[in-house]
């Protein structure tokens, strides 16, 4: 019983922390529409492989930056630059 309580505590803590980590700023469709064409913002399409090639919906002007190669492309952008990433 003791082991079970310890396990559940760890499980809840780890999932709880994950939930906090997932809190990233998001933009709505309308907010993005209003920003389109702005020089200060870059849209990155993070889909790769079939996820990208099978999709009909691709934002015009978006740059392909596969999510599994973040280390490679993240160097090309400054930390204060506004980047909008989309995957669906």
């Amino acid at each position, binding site marked *: 019983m003791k082991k079970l309580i310890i396990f559940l505590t760890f499980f809840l803590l780890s999932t709880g922390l994950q939930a906090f980590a997932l809190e990233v700023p998001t933009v709505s469709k309308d907010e993005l529409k209003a920003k389109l064409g702005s020089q200060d913002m870059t849209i990155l399409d993070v*889909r*790769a*492989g*079939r*996820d*990208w*090639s*099978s*999709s*009909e*919906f691709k934002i015009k002007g978006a740059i392909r930056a596969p*999510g*599994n190669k973040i280390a490679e492309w993240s160097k090309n952008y400054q930390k204060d630059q506004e980047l909008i990433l989309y995957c*669906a």
Partner: protein
Amino acid sequence: MDSLILQTKHSFFLSLALGAGWLLSPESLVITGNSSGHMTWLTLPVLAIVALLFGLTARLLQQPQLSSRKGEEFTLLAEFTGTIPATALTIASSLPLIVLSATALLVTSGYTFNEVFLYWFPNFGFAFLLLAILTILQFCPEKILHRAQIFFVALAAGGLLSLCLLGFVKIGGATSQQVAELPTHFSWATIAPLFLLFAGSTLGSNRERPFLLPIAATVLFALWIVISLSYVTPDRLISSTIPYMTAARKILGDPGRQIMGAVVISGTCAAYTGLMLAARRLLATIIDSKSGSQLFSIKMQRWLLPTLLALITAILMATGLAGEELLEVLLRAALMLWLLHHIFLCISALVWLKKDSRLPLAGGGATLAMVAALFSLFISNAEHTKILIFSFSMLGISTLLALIWLTINKRRNHSAKEQETQ
């Protein structure tokens, strides 16, 4: 032995449906769209020639001197290469193709369903749901499976045909300037992918009408190529990853997308079921040729094989292979292995017929053209090292499986003989 799976005489519609699965898949539509962008109007005669070559090789394999042989294609191949290489090549050319094409096509169907029909339905959820339905279908009696295959093929071909007709009506029957435009790229590298359209078509059960499928495919694709070039620029067809959807949207707007959505999903079902039926038939011929247990044969092809392949496909989808560029390379390699197997079958037939001093020149020429196409596919692909590694790995694993199976079979036969003598 499950007699139905080895049956070679089928109705007209079933003959068409068994071989046409892969032909109507979204992958084939991408190959056709990109090729028509590269070669414009020249795609039509090239497609007709490729179809003719497949018809000639299918006719070569159904020569009366060969068709009387037990186990059909497999026995023919085994006599030329030996049992283990023949078993290995047969497994390596069919099973990886099913798994990889299923992974790719199901994900494409998932995206299509999500973007065309129901935005709120998760694309991956649909891909897994479709895989489950198609796997359950494999457990059904052959009659139901064959009817389902006819339905999938009819739906995909009907959708494509209706889009062509509606497109012609909309432009008043006149084709645009783009059809008459000169091809921008015309080489072996742009011709060779068209050979991959016919994957699995000759592995079908049709032995009586070798030219039926090539003629039907040429007519349907010729209409689609003309209509695509009438509505979409060649540059757009080359650059698009979904040229079929681009053309459908241009032809009919949203209703066009919905018709194409149905074509993509039914084409995926047709490709999976068609390739699976072909693989089951091949497996049955391998087991039959070595006098394997009848019960083992039926269990293997009806339950074990579809379950195992669906499980591997599900694992590949869940681990995100569809989101990797590697999938495209592996799928291309699997298709090339299929072409290699077909070439070996043709060479085996030619060698056998030569013993009878009856070498069919047309069949020999068609085989030679396929060797050239395979070589071109390999050379023109930037990832040929990965293709080689994958191909040899698959052949190696298949050889190991063949050795294990032959050993089990030998022991089983030995113990059966011992029991008989006792």
